[in-house]
């Protein structure tokens, strides 16, 4: 008990480091989440496009990127890309952050694509048939009947993708980005007496992001469930 009281008395000194790490983690999450979302939408569009070539390329991209471990993608961006000429010297220390963003966006994009695609495939074909048979045009069918149903079915799996992304940002800590995970290592180095409470605090800071996201996903799932 005494031990934890001492920890909490030290916590104000540690807090700036925790906070800096937490903010860096949030930055990684938001920036690479947005980029992955855009790439994922494009890949999903490829996969449902009427052009066979685009469908195949989308499928091959998804299959390859999904089967490569995140660590290897980080090795690719942080070690291989510089030897290929993408040195990013102008970013100075920030280059690691950029490499991390590239790796996380790349890795997350096929999962976004799959979430979006499953939403569209989840709309029963009868919905589009019904819309067509009452005389709606292509655009009307898509925007008034298919899209509204597909989007709400897409949101919960998309949130789950972003929860996974939150946890994956920790890998950036292994590649020289000063985010929450690597900050916890730095904190343990300086306050060697408190490895357990420091790691628990770090875990709680991750949970502060992931648990509410999970709650939102569950809420949306119940709220917008399409009753047919």
């Amino acid at each position, binding site marked *: 008990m005494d031990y934890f009281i001492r920890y909490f008395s030290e916590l104000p000194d540690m807090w700036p480091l925790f906070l800096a790490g937490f903010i860096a983690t949030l930055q990684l999450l938001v920036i690479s989440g947005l980029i992955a979302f855009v790439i994922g939408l494009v890949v999903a569009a490829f996969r449902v496009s009427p052009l066979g070539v685009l469908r195949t390329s989308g499928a091959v991209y998804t299959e390859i990127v999904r089967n490569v471990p995140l660590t290897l993608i980080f090795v690719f961006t942080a070690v291989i890309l510089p030897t290929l000429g993408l040195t990013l010297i102008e970013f100075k220390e920030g280059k690691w952050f950029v490499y991390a963003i590239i790796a996380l966006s790349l890795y997350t994009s096929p999962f976004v694509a799959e979430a979006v695609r499953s939403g569209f495939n989840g709309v029963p074909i009868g919905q589009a048939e019904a819309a067509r048979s009452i005389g709606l045009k292509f655009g009307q069918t898509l925007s008034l009947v298919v899209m509204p149903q597909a989007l709400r079915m897409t949101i919960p799996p998309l949130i789950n993708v972003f929860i996974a992304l939150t946890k994956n940002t920790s890998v950036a800590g292994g590649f020289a980005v000063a985010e929450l995970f690597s900050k916890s290592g730095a904190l343990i180095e300086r306050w060697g007496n408190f490895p357990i409470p420091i*790691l628990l605090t770090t875990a709680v800071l*991750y949970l502060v992001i992931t648990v509410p996201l999970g709650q939102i996903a569950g809420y949306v799932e119940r709220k917008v469930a399409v009753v047919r």
Partner: protein
Amino acid sequence: MTNLVLFDAPGPKAKRLSLILNILALVAVAAGIAWIIYTLAAPRVYPGANPGEEIVQPGYFDPSRWHIFFGEGSGELWGAIGQGVWATLSAAGVAAILALLIGMVFALLSNAPSRWVRIPTTVVLEFFRGMPVLLMMFFLLIVIFPGAPFWAVVGGLALYNGAIIGEILRAGLKALPRGQREAGLTIGLTSLSTRILIEFPQAFKQMTPIIVAQLVVLLKDTSLGYIVSYPELVRKTMNHLATYYGTDYRMSFFLVTLVIYLAINMLVSTFARYLSKRMTK
């Protein structure tokens, strides 16, 4: 299929347009791939120490970048790569077995009759699922298994995936018809035996495809061992071997690692798909 519903059937004009666009897209994709291969094959030019000076190195498909993989001494190299593969697969195998066991325990506890068991279990499940596996491995490495990264990797993967499998099994148990449990209790089995003998086998069978998919994720996540200094495949090739043989071979090692991972994961994924097809029949 959806496309056929959304559009009218294409006439000759639309068919021709689609053919042209298809060819254009094919050319664009082929050009992109060709550009990547060309760039990799081209000699590498780096700025030298003095201004105006240039260092030229062979392209990445040059034999001088690959000779270590063939001929004399290559047996040792492949042996080291084999060690990396074995380290990855053995960690994944042990972690998978433990994760299944932990998952079953979690599923039992989170369906326990007493809420004094159920609610703490839910909290623990939520805790394990919500934090990064890497953090868990780091915790185990520092606090519980110092100097034993294998057990840190295995333990982290087993706890994290155990929590997820527990959640999957819980959903599987919930989806079973109530009659199954009632029948078990009626013939005089205890609550626990009903769960284990009657409900679990069915829930397991129902959820097998999802569980196998999760085990593929587990296999991929062994690569996090790279960061907690466990010499799995990525660390072995990209760190140990690339340092030993020199940076000239880094790209070659990367490509070899990539191909090995793709081969293993696609094999397991294909098996998972085959299994889920058989199960849903």
